[in-house]
């Protein structure tokens, strides 16, 4: 009992910090550049991603003893694609503005190597509950980097958080200016680079 508990915890905590999909494994960088101009879109993207990874891992793991080996990649893709389209339809119905801002990027979760990677590397060889936890962990690890980057970009790029002005008018009056560069994709690249550096430094790597 103690061991499984420890294993479940390790499965969850590993991808959030020590094996973070973005800052350690360097996966999913593309969408991390695109959707991190605002906190709101970053959070929705992180949540959609968590939903997709967790459930695709769960389903793939439940089927792992029946899936014929020769078509397993196709099966994984079909499961992932179905979940992504479900997430997209849901956003379009209940969060229309956000889904417009995310545009193609929700659909592109299908091509995000984190999802496929977890299905192949973990879900196929582990029981469903661990696979589900692993998915949540990876989604949260991905989402946490997205939110950190978006926090920095929105605060310094447009002086706002969640679309609400944070930097007081008096700052602007005394000559402060928003950093336009923060709104462009290269800024996300630099911030992610700095985060990787910081994490490796803290981990004593």
């Amino acid at each position, binding site marked *: 009992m103690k061991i499984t508990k420890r294993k479940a915890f390790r499965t969850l905590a590993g991808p959030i910090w020590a094996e973070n999909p973005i800052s350690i494994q360097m996966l999913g960088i593309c969408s991390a550049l695109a959707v991190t101009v605002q906190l709101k879109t970053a959070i929705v993207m992180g949540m959609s991603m968590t939903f997709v990874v967790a459930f695709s891992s769960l389903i793939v793991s439940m089927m792992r003893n029946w899936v*014929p080996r*020769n078509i397993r990649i196709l099966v994984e893709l079909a499961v992932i*694609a*179905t979940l992504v389209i*479900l997430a997209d339809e*849901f956003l*379009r*119905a209940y969060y*229309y503005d956000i889904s417009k801002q995310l*545009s193609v990027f929700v659909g592109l979760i299908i091509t995000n190597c984190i999802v496929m990677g977890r299905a192949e590397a973990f879900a196929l060889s582990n029981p469903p509950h661990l696979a589900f936890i692993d998915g949540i962990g990876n989604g949260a690890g991905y989402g946490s980097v997205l939110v950190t980057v978006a926090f920095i970009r929105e605060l310094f790029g447009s002086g706002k958080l969640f679309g609400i002005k944070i930097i007081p008018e008096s700052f602007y009056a005394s000559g402060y200016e928003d950093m336009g560069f923060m709104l462009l994709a290269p800024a996300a690249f630099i911030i992610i680079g700095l985060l990787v550096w910081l994490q490796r430094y803290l981990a004593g790597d």
Partner: protein
Amino acid sequence: MSDRSRSIIFASVLCLLCGALLTAASNGLKGIQQKNIMSDRKKNILKSVGLIQKQMQYSAAQIDQIYERNISQLLVDEKGDLLGENRDGTPKNKRGLPVYLYINRKGLIEAYIIPVDTRGLWGKILGYIAIKNDGVTITGFTVYQHSETPGLGGEIEQNWFQNNFVGKKIIGPSGAFASISIAKGKAADSAPKERYSNYVDGISGATLTGKFLTSGLKDILTNYEAVSVKFRNIRKYCKTNQNTPWCRR
């Protein structure tokens, strides 16, 4: 059972399951999605005449309320005359051109709004262009649906691009129809000075989107030129046609 037939059966069952799930989700959510799309269109109409702030959030009910209070829709023929209606209220000619009027609280027409439906580089560009009651000055341009490349042609949905249209004119210095064109690069660099008011700044890296939008807007504004001409000569026109909706004042 052989490995091959097992694979085929597994794949077919999986496809059926996924297909059924997606069909159910798509059909179940269609109503709400459709409502969102309609509300988004109304929002874009209001945005094109500056009735809502670009940064603010509005609920669907608020949008409906502002829309009902200010906007009314008409169908006109190619001469800019109102289409007659059948007894049941449907227009006689189904190929009429829709025009939206922004009527202020005093009952005066402030602006008219023309739906934009044109080809882009990858697919259709749908939006609205609003022109002031002088029949010349653009008060706003919006896009609510497109398939242009995000970050390049996709910038047509951004405020910085759309704001460039405000105050531009659709007639040239001689008073003849000139449409509105998307410049290659900055309008100030690529257009002659006297034509500057007929050009908006282009998007770097999206020359083709600009070209398609330019020719699309030209076609659309040409179709509606008869309406614009009525507004340009509104005094003269209304002396003889007092009862038409254009002369509401």
